[in-house]
C-alpha cells in the first residue's frame, strides 16, 4: 500500500506505532506529486523543504516519546488564498503573483500547532471566483477521474490533490459552494463549517459575509479530524463564533436511527442530470433503510438564492478587491498619473471573471441601484434563513444534491458565465444562511463521482458528520481511487 493513499487517521496510527516515519509519508506524497502532477496540475507552489523539515520535527518528537496531535506529520495542501508567512500567496491572480505575506493565517497557526505538514499551495479560480478552476490565471487543474473534465471550483486544486493522492488532506474555502462542489466532482469529502466556526483571519477575502474555510479529505473521519484542528474562536476575526469545539471524532457513529432527514424539493432544479437526481434519491432510501425518518420540506425562497448570492457576493467583492491598486503591494502597471496607474494595474492584474464580478458588485452598490439590488438581496437572504429555520423546526438535517451535474468538460462553460453560475444553485443558499454542510460521494455516472449534500443547523457539524459517516460506512465510495490513482 502506498502511504500517500492512506487516510490521516490510518497514518496517525502507523506513525504512533512507529511503523512509518513522517519523513517517509511526506516523501511518498512528493513522489506521487512527481508522478502525476503534470496531468493534474493541482499545485501553484510546492513547499518541499519546509514540508520535510516539518516531518522530521515530528519524527524527532515521536523518537523522544512525546505525544503527537492527530494531524502531526500528515501532509496536506492549502488553497492558495490562505496566507503563509514567507510563502508566496497568489489567489491564482496575476495581481498577487509575487505577493509574500508577512504573517500566517489563523488556520496555518492552528495546523502548525498540530505539527501538520504543508506540502504546497493549491490552485483555485482566481480569488475563489468560479466553479471549475479554469479561472486560475496560471493554469487549469484537471479532474483526476477524467483529465478532460474540470475538478470543480473554486477549491479545485485542493480537491484534485486529495483525489489524486497528492495530499492526504487539504483546506478549501467555500463562499457559494467552493469546497463542496469540487469535493463532489473529485469524489472526496468536503465540509463547509458554520459561518464563524473557523477563523477567516489570513484568508484572502472574496465575500466576507459568506467565506468560510473547511476541510477536503478522503473520508468522513479525516474530515472530522481536520475540522477539529482548525475550528475555534479567534479574537482577530470579529465574526468568529465563541463556542467550544466538540470532539468531532465522537460524532462518528454509524447509526442514523431516529434522525429526521428532510428533502427540499426545490433543490431538484430544471436541467438536473437524471443520474444525479437518481443517486440522491437512492442515498435517501439508503438512509431511510438505516433507520432515518424522512419527510419533504418546503423551501419556497430557494429560487431567489442564486440571484441574491451573486449580488451580495459581488458587492462585497467589489469592495474587498479595491485594495489591489498597485500602491502598496501586488502588481503595479505603468501610468502617468495615479488614475492611469490604478487602471493599468487592475486591468493587467485581474482576469475576466474577477473584473466581471467587480463590475457587477460596483453596480449593485451604486447610488440609485442599491435599494433595487443590494438591499433586496439582503431581504431575500433573510427570507432564505427563515426557510431554513422553519425546516429545521421539523427535521435534523437536510439532504440535497451538490450540483445539477457531474464534472463537465474543460472549456465547456467558459463562454457562458450564466451556465457556470447555475452550477452553484444547490450550494449558495447554505452560505447565505451561514449553515454547515458536507459533501460526500453517493455514486457514479459515466465514471464520474456524484456528490450528496447534507446540511445542518448552525453549529450542527456533529449531526451532519454522523449522518455522513453512517452513509459512508454503508458504502465503499470512499475506498475507490481515481483511475489516475492506479497509474
Amino acid at each position, binding site marked *: 500500500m502506498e502511504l500517500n493513499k492512506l487516510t490521516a487517521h490510518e497514518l496517525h496510527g502507523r506513525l504512533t506505532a512507529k511503523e512509518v516515519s513522517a519523513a517517509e509519508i511526506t516523501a511518498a506524497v512528493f513522489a506521487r506529486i512527481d508522478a502525476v502532477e503534470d496531468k493534474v496540475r493541482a499545485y501553484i507552489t510546492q513547499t518541499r523543504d519546509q514540508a520535510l523539515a516539518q516531518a522530521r520535527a515530528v519524527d524527532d518528537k515521536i523518537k523522544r516519546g512525546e505525544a503527537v496531535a492527530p494531524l502531526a506529520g500528515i501532509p496536506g495542501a492549502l488553497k492558495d488564498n490562505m496566507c503563509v508567512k514567507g510563502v508566496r500567496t497568489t489567489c491564482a491572480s496575476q495581481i498577487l503573483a509575487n505577493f509574500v505575506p508577512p504573517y500566517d493565517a489563523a488556520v496555518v497557526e492552528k495546523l502548525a500547532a498540530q505539527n501538520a505538514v504543508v506540502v504546497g499551495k493549491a490552485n483555485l479560480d482566481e480569488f475563489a471566483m468560479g466553479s471549475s478552476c479554469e479561472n486560475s490565471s496560471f493554469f487549469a487543474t484537471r479532474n483526476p477521474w477524467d483529465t478532460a473534465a474540470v475538478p470543480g471550483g473554486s477549491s479545485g486544486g485542493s480537491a484534485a490533490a486529495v483525489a489524486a493522492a497528492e495530499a492526504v488532506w487539504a483546506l478549501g474555502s467555500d463562499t457559494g459552494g467552493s469546497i463542496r462542489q469540487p469535493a463532489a466532482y473529485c469524489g472526496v469529502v468536503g465540509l463547509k463549517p458554520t459561518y464563524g466556526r473557523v477563523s477567516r483571519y489570513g484568508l484572502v477575502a472574496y465575500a466576507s459575509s459568506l467565506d468560510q474555510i473547511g476541510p477536503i479529505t478522503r473520508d468522513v473521519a479525516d474530515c472530522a479530524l481536520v475540522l477539529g484542528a482548525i475550528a475555534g474562536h479567534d479574537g482577530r476575526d470579529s465574526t468568529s463564533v465563541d463556542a467550544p469545539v466538540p470532539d468531532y471524532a465522537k460524532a462518528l457513529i454509524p447509526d442514523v436511527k431516529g434522525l429526521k432527514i428532510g428533502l427540499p424539493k426545490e433543490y431538484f432544479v430544471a436541467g438536473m442530470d437524471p443520474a444525479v437526481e437518481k443517486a440522491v434519491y437512492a442515498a435517501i432510501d439508503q438512509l431511510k433503510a438505516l433507520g432515518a425518518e424522512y419527510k419533504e420540506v418546503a423551501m419556497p425562497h430557494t429560487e431567489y438564492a442564486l440571484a441574491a448570492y451573486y449580488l451580495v457576493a459581488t458587492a462585497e467583492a467589489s469592495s474587498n478587491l*479595491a485594495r489591489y491598486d498597485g500602491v502598496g503591494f501586488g502588481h503595479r502597471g505603468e501610468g502617468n498619473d495615479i488614475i492611469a496607474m490604478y487602471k493599468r494595474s487592475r486591468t493587467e492584474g485581474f482576469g475576466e471573471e474577477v473584473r466581471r464580478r467587480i463590475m457587477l458588485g460596483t453596480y449593485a452598490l451604486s*447610488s440609485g441601484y442599491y435599494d433595487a439590488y443590494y438591499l433586496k438581496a439582503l431581504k431575500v437572504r433573510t427570507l432564505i434563513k427563515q426557510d431554513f429555520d422553519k425546516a429545521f423546526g421539523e427535521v435534523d438535517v437536510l439532504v440535497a444534491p451538490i450540483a445539477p451535474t457531474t464534472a463537465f468538460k474543460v472549456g465547456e462553460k467558459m463562454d457562458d458565465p450564466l451556465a457556470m453560475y447555475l452550477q452553484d444553485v444547490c450550494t449558495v443558499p447554505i452560505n447565505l444562511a451561514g449553515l454547515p454542510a458536507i459533501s460526500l460521494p453517493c455514486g457514479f455516472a459515466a465514471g464520474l463521482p456524484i456528490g450528496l449534500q447534507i446540511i445542518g443547523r448552525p453549529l450542527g457539524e456533529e449531526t451532519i458528520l454522523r449522518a455522513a459517516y453512517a452513509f459512508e460506512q454503508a458504502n465503499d465510495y470512499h475506498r475507490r481511487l481515481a483511475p489516475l490513482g492506479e497509474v
Partner: protein
Amino acid sequence: MDYEVVVGLEVHTELKTATKIFCGCSTKFGAAQNTNVCPVCLGLPGVLPVLNARVVEFAVRTGLALNCRILPFSKFDRKNYYYPDLPKNFQTSQYDLPIAVDGHLDIAVGGQTRRIGITRVHMEEDAGKLVHAGSITKSEYALVDYNRTGVPLLEIVSEPDIRSAEEAKAYLEKLKAILQYIDVSDCKMEEGSLRCDANISLRPKGETKLGTKAEIKNLNSFKAVQKGLEYETARQADVLGEGGRVIQETRTWDDACGVTVSLRSKEEAHDYRYFPEPDLVPIVVDPAWVEDIRRHLPELPDARQGRLMKDYGLSAYEAGVITAGRAMAEYFDATVAAGADAKAAANWLMGELSRQLNAAGKELEDCPVAPGQLAGLIGLQAQGTVSGKLAKTVFEAMWASGKDAAAIVKEQGLVQISDAGAIEAVVDKVIAANPQSVDDFKAGKERAIGFLVGQVMKETKGRANPELVNKLLRERM
C-alpha cells in the same frame, strides 16, 4: 440685499486612545514614518478589523457631553473611494446608524447665548498621509506614511444653526474645550487632531428656505474657520448680488492666498457606495454602561464657568476665558487652591502668564511657573512685599529660572520700600532736580506728578511703594 449666512460644521477629531481603532498599533504622533503599522492597518490581503472598545467608550462619552442620544444599536459601514492614502480603498466609517445623534452645545457670541444642534457623532478610521517631494504640483511622485492610517476619529456634524463666521469660531472653540475636558482628544489643530469642514449657504433675510451650499474643506485653524467663512460669505453675496447663482460644489480654503478655490462640482461628487461592513459585528451598547459613563463625566466648560462666577465673583468674560481650555481652568483652580486670591489669579492668567506663553510659543502644560509658585507671587503682592510692577519683574525671573517668588525677591533685593524715611530723601532729590515739573504741577497740571513718580521709581530701581511716593511728593512740593 441683506443676506443671512447659514453654516453647518463637520469636525473630525482624533481620539487619544493608545492604540488604533482596528488593530494594536500605537497612535503616537511624530513616530518615524511607517513604523506604527501592521498587516491590519496596511490593509494586506486576508486581514480583518477588530474594534477597539476604548473608541466606543470615547465616542459615547463625547455623545453624552454633547447632549446626544446614544443609539442602542449602531454599526460600521464601508465608504468606498480610491485614494493612495487609504490602503483598502475604503474607509470603515458609520453611515446610517451612528453611535450618537440629536445633541447640542451652547455658544456665547456678542453677549448672547445660542444653542447649536449636533446632528450626529460617528466613529471612523483616519487615512494615511501623502508626502510630496517638493511642492504638490511639481512633485514627480508621492510617498505614503501609513502611521496615521487607522487612528480613531470622531466626526461631529452640526445642524445648519450657525449664522456667522464668528459663531462658527465660537462653536469650534466650545467643541474643542468640551473634547479636552472629557479627555478624549488633544485637539491639536497643528497636528491635525482637530480638523474642520464647513457647509455654507446664503439666503435673503427672512427667507426660511435654505440657499445652495458650498462645502469648504481644509479649515484647519480657528483663524482659517473665521477667515474662510468670511471670505465665502462675501463671495456668495457677490455672486447673488450680481444676479448669479451659487453652484453646489466642494471648495478648499487656501490659507496662504486667503481665498476658497473650487475642487469639484456636484456632478463630480463621489458615489461612496456605502454598505454595512461585513467584517465587523453591530455595536450593541448596554444602557447601564452608558449611564455609568454619564455619571463619570467631568465638570464641563459651561458648568465650570458658572462655578467660577458664583464662587469667586469673576465676570462672565473672565470665567469664560479661564474655562475655554481645560488646562487653564485646571491651572486656575490649582492656583486658587494654593491660596491665591481668585480675582488676582484670573488677572495673572489672562494677562502676564498668557502673554509669556504666547511669546514663547508654549502650551500651558509646558509652563515653567507652577500654579503653587504663581500663588506665592500673588501672596507677596497682596502683602505689599512687592509692587505690581515689581511683581512682573519677579514673574519674568521665575519664568526664566523656575525659582519661587520669595527666593527671587530675597536674592535680588526686590522687596518693596514702604519706609517713608527711606523714600523722602529720594523724593527731595527728584523735586530739586525737576523744577519745571514741580512748577507745572503747582500750576494745576496733574499729569506732571506721574513723571515725578516715575523718576523716584527709577532712582529706587522700582522698589519704592508707588502710593507712598505719590503721597510724599504731594506733601513736599
